[in-house]
C-alpha cells in the first residue's frame, strides 16, 4: 500500500516488538494468493492476495457484503475459491475437505450442538480425533477452566446465557489447538459491556496460548482494540492492510479514512509543491502540509483529510498562532457525549467536525450554537488522500 513511508515507519514503531510482516525472512502461515470467489454473476472476493503470520491477531474488517466472511469460509473449507490458491503452513488447501483442515472456527451463531451438554460439545473435536478417553477428560476440564465454565459442564446450550454460550463456542474451537482459529463476528451477539470485557479476554488468551487468530468483524472498535493488523475490505478487495495506528493515522484511501472513525474530508487540487511542503487549494482556502512530493503532480485532484479530535476549536475573535490551517465557520450543532463534545461547524456549505475532550466538568459551554468559530489544524495532522 502506498502510504507515506515516513509516517508508516514511525507508526510501526509503536508496536515494534512483534512485526513479522516487516521481516522479509518471515514465512507467512496463511496465504491467499489471487483468490476470487464468484456466485453466478456476483463477485464476492475479487483477485485478493493476503498473508497472515504466525501468532498474529488478524482482523478482516469491512461492511456487510464486502466478502470478509466468504474469505474466512474459504480458509475453513466451506467455500471453494473460483480462482487462486489458499495456502496454510505451506500446504495448498485445494481439495482438502473441512473436516481434514487444521483450522477451527467459532461461528457467529456459535452453532453449539443443542442435544449435547457443554462438556460433550467441547469434547466433540477430540472424540473425532480419536483421543483417549482419559486425555479428553483432562483437556475438557482444562478448557472449561480456561473459559470459567466448570460449574456449567452438564448444562445444555439452551440453559445458558449468551455470554456463556459464546465461551462454550470458544472452548470448543480452541480445544483442538488449531493452527489458525477463525472467529466470525465472535462478539456480535453480546451486549456492549460484555463485549468490551471479552475483547480484552480474547487478546490475553491469544497471547497466552500463542495461537494465530483471524477475526471477521464489521465493528471497527473491535478490530482496532484487538488486532495486530487489520485488513480493511471493500467490495471483495483489500483497501488497506496495516496495524491499527497506521490504518487510523495514515489511511491509504478515502474509503479507509471514511470507514475507520470520524474524519473531515475536503476535496481540492495540488497548487504548489515546494520541497517537502505541498499546498492544496480547496473551496475552504489553501491548506499546506508536509508530504513527500514524488507521488503527486501540480493540478492533480486530491483530498485533504483530518480527524475531528486533532482539530482545535476557538471563537473567531480569539487570537491564534499562525503556521496552521485555519477555517472559519458557524457552529451548526453540538453533540455532548460525556467524555467528548463534538462540534459540527458549517463552512461554505460543508460540515466539518471538531471533537474536544471534556477534561474538566462542564459548567458553562465556552462556545454556543450559531457562534462564529475558527477550526485550527496543525500541518502534520493533515492527510493527503490521492485515491
Amino acid at each position, binding site marked *: 500500500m502506498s502510504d507515506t513511508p515516513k509516517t508508516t515507519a514511525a507508526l510501526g514503531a509503536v508496536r515494534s516488538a512483534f512485526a513479522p510482516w516487516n521481516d522479509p525472512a518471515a514465512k507467512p502461515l496463511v496465504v491467499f494468493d489471487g483468490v476470487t470467489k464468484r456466485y453466478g454473476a456476483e463477485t464476492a472476493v475479487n483477485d485478493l492476495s493476503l498473508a497472515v503470520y504466525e501468532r498474529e491477531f488478524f482482523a478482516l474488517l469491512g461492511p456487510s457484503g464486502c466478502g470478509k466472511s466468504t474469505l474466512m469460509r474459504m480458509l*475453513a*473449507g*466451506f467455500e471453494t475459491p473460483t480462482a487462486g490458491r489458499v495456502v496454510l503452513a505451506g500446504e495448498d488447501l485445494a481439495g482438502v*475437505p*473441512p*473436516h*481434514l*483442515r487444521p*483450522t*477451527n*472456527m467459532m*461461528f457467529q*451463531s456459535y*452453532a*453449539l*450442538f*443443542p*442435544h449435547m451438554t457443554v462438556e460433550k460439545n467441547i469434547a*466433540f*473435536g477430540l472424540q*473425532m*480425533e480419536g483421543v483417549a478417553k482419559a486425555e479428553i477428560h483432562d483437556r475438557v476440564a482444562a478448557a472449561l477452566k480456561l473459559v470459567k465454565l466448570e460449574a456449567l459442564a452438564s448444562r445444555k446450550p*439452551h440453559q445458558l446465557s449468551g455470554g456463556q454460550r459464546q465461551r462454550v463456542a470458544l472452548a*470448543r*474451537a480452541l480445544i*483442538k489447538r488449531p493452527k489458525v482459529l477463525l472467529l466470525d463476528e465472535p462478539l456480535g451477539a453480546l451486549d456492549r459491556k460484555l463485549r468490551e470485557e471479552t475483547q480484552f479476554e480474547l487478546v490475553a488468551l491469544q497471547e497466552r496460548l500463542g495461537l494465530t487468530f483471524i477475526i471477521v468483524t464489521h465493528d471497527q472498535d473491535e478490530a482496532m482494540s484487538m488486532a495486530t493488523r487489520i485488513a480493511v475490505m471493500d467490495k471483495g478487495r483489500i483497501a488497506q492492510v496495516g496495524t491499527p495506528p497506521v490504518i487510523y493515522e495514515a489511511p491509504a484511501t478515502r474509503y479507509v479514512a471514511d470507514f475507520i472513525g470520524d474524519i473531515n474530508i475536503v476535496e481540492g487540487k495540488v497548487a504548489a509543491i515546494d520541497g517537502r511542503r505541498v499546498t492544496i487549494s480547496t473551496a475552504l482556502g489553501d491548506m499546506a502540509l508536509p508530504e513527500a512530493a514524488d507521488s503527486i503532480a501540480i493540478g492533480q485532484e486530491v483530498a485533504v483529510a483530518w480527524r475531528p479530535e486533532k482539530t482545535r476549536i476557538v471563537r473567531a475573535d480569539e487570537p491564534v498562532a499562525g503556521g496552521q490551517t485555519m477555517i472559519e465557520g458557524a457552529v451548526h450543532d453540538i453533540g455532548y457525549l460525556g467524555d467528548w463534545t463534538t462540534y459540527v461547524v458549517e463552512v461554505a456549505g460543508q460540515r466539518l467536525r471538531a471533537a474536544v475532550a471534556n477534561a474538566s466538568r462542564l459548567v458553562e459551554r465556552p462556545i454556543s450554537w450559531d457562534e462564529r468559530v475558527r477550526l485550527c489544524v496543525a500541518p502534520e495532522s493533515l492527510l493527503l488522500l490521492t485515491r
Partner: protein
Amino acid sequence: MSERQARRTIILVPYLWLAVFFLVPFAIVAKMSLSQVATAIPPYVPVFGLDDGPAGWLAKARELSLDNYGVIASDRLYIDAFLTSIRIAATGTLILLVIGYPMAHAMARAPENWRPLLVMAVILPFWTSFLIRVYAWIGILKPEGLLNELLLGLGLIGAPLQIANTETAVLIGVVYSYLPFMVLPLYASLERMDRTLLEAAADLGCPPWKAFWRITVPLSLPGIVAGCFLCFIPITGEVVIPDLLGGSDTLMIGKTLWTEFFSNRDWPVASAVAVLLLVLLVGPIVLYQRQQARQLEAAR
C-alpha cells in the same frame, strides 16, 4: 358473566365435545362388550330401559359379564389377528421410516424455492379418495395386472407373481398410503435444523457420514418418533387395505372387528375386540403425547 366464568365456558366446549362424541360412545361400546349376543333388535341383552326402575337396572347389571373377553382369549383367531396387526404395523412403520427418511432429508436439503412444491407433491395423493387409490393397487398387483405384465414383458419373470391377496400386498398398500404421514413430520424436523451445526461438526473433524449419525439423526428424533406413531397407530387398526389387498389370508384385527359386527352380527364380541384394540393402542398414544409435550417444553 365474569372473566373467570367466560374462561371456564370456553374450556368446557372441547371437553363437552369429547364427552359427547368420544366418552359416551366408548361407554356404550364398553357396556356392549359385557352383554350377551341375542336374536333381537338390538342384537344383544340386556338392554337398559328408562322405565326399568332402580331394581330393574340392578337385576340387568347382574347379567353383564366378561364372557366375551374369555371367548377372545381362548380363540387363536383373535390373538392371531392382534399379532398379525402388530407385526404388519411394525414392519410397515420400519419400511416407511427407511423410505421416508431419505425422502424427507432430500426435501429439507433441496433449494428453498423448491420445497413448497415438494411438500405439495407429497400431499397431492390426498386429492383422490383413499379408497380409489387402494383399488388402483389391485389393478397393479393382480396376476394379470400392470406390474406382472411389465415384468413379463421385460422377460424378468416367466410366470405371473402372486402378490395380490398376500401380506406383501398389504405391506405395499400400507407403505404407499401412509408415506405422507411419515415424510411430513420428518421433513418438519429436518428442515428446521440449523445447517451451520453440520459445518461446525465438519470444522471439528467430523466426516459427513458421521455427522449424519451424531448430529442429524439425534436432532430429528422428535420427527422420527412422531412419524412412527402417526403410522403405527392407524395401521394397527387398518380395515380397508387388508380387506382389498390382503384377501382372506391376512387377518388383521380391524377386519376381524368388521366381520364380527356386520357379517356375524355378534356385537358384544365385536365390542370387546374394539375395547381391547383401544387398550392396546393407548400405550403408544400416551407415549406419543408425552413426547410431544416434552418437545414443546424444550422448544420454549
